[in-house]
């Protein structure tokens, strides 16, 4: 990808009290939504719909397990490993990392979440685990609540921050204080979602062993 030198005036006070004086930042060129990735998203969506339509155990289990594992690992890794690292990076490094990571997240997360939940619901219908007579019904409802809380945080806070930070970075003169504010929101949300994913692991392992 061609590096684009953005004339970003870094306001030292707005970023960190001891940060460097104003300087130019190298900002890689990027697409907010990577268009080539949309093909992969479309393929995954079509295959998920086909799995639901077929209502066969293996495709449903495949999409639910693969999607669920990806979702959990990404949230845990982002919340507890990458998030804290990003918080400690210098502003130029964070900008470069953000422009490479966030566009991929715009496509990956909604796709993985939709695939997991759609296939998971159908799998539950197939296995009877979403039936209110299921002997572990309380745990199933607990999983709905955890997913619901995660959905509200992800849709209401995390995703808007993700898009907004990318739009800001696309500007010829992105404002560091805006990026800082939005990235802080993104990193905190990722941490909360990571914690919620621990709850998901507890529930899912309990549901699996009965």
């Amino acid at each position: 990808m061609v590096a684009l030198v953005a004339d970003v005036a870094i306001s030292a006070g707005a970023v960190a009290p001891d940060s460097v004086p104003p300087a130019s930042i190298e900002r890689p060129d990027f697409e907010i939504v990577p268009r080539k990735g949309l093909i992969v998203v479309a393929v995954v969506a079509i295959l998920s719909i086909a799995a639901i339509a077929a209502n066969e155990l293996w495709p449903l289990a495949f999409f639910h397990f693969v999607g669920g594992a990806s979702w959990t690992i990404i949230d845990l890794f982002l919340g507890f490993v990458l998030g804290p690292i990003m918080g400690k990076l210098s502003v130029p490094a964070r900008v470069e990392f953000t422009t490479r990571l966030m566009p991929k997240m715009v496509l990956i997360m909604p796709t993985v979440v939709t695939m997991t939940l759609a296939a998971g619901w159908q799998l539950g219908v197939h296995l009877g685990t979403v039936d209110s007579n299921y002997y572990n019904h309380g745990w199933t409802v607990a999983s709905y609540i955890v997913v619901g809380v995660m959905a509200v945080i992800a849709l209401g806070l995390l995703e808007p921050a993700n898009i907004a930070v990318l739009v800001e970075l696309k500007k010829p003169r992105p404002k560091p204080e805006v990026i800082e504010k939005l990235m802080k929101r993104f990193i905190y949300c990722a941490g909360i979602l990571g914690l919620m994913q621990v709850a998901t692991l507890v529930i899912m392992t309990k549901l699996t062993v009965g």
Partner: protein
Amino acid sequence: MSERRLPPVTQIGMTSLALIVAGGIYLSAHLPHHVPLGPAVALLAASVLLLAANLIVLTRVPDFPWGRFFDVAKWTLLAYVVIAGMIEYSFLRDHIKGGVLVVLTLSLVVFAVHVPVLVGFTVARFYEPEGPASDGLHA
């Protein structure tokens, strides 16, 4: 940062989403048995009211950058209509019908509209006109 004073659109939006999620959980927790629809309808109605309130307070913000808002919101809307369509398909596939289907479908409509509003708002709130090349979306 010269951030303008804006109504609490994100907070209202998250509350609205939380209400439809609660309604969805309530209905899902009772399936496949008969579900009393009253609580789900009340949660949906409250969520719709919050969506309407959000749109009204937003239209009253002076000089709100609607161009920027719609640039982002229209594509987000497209994405969430596809996602909502997939969820609706699975409802139909599972033969959900009657009042439950109506409530769930309307909940999906609120979801598919409110998320783009939140994304568009979050982007537009930081918009400051700098010149023709400044919009970031068409760079």
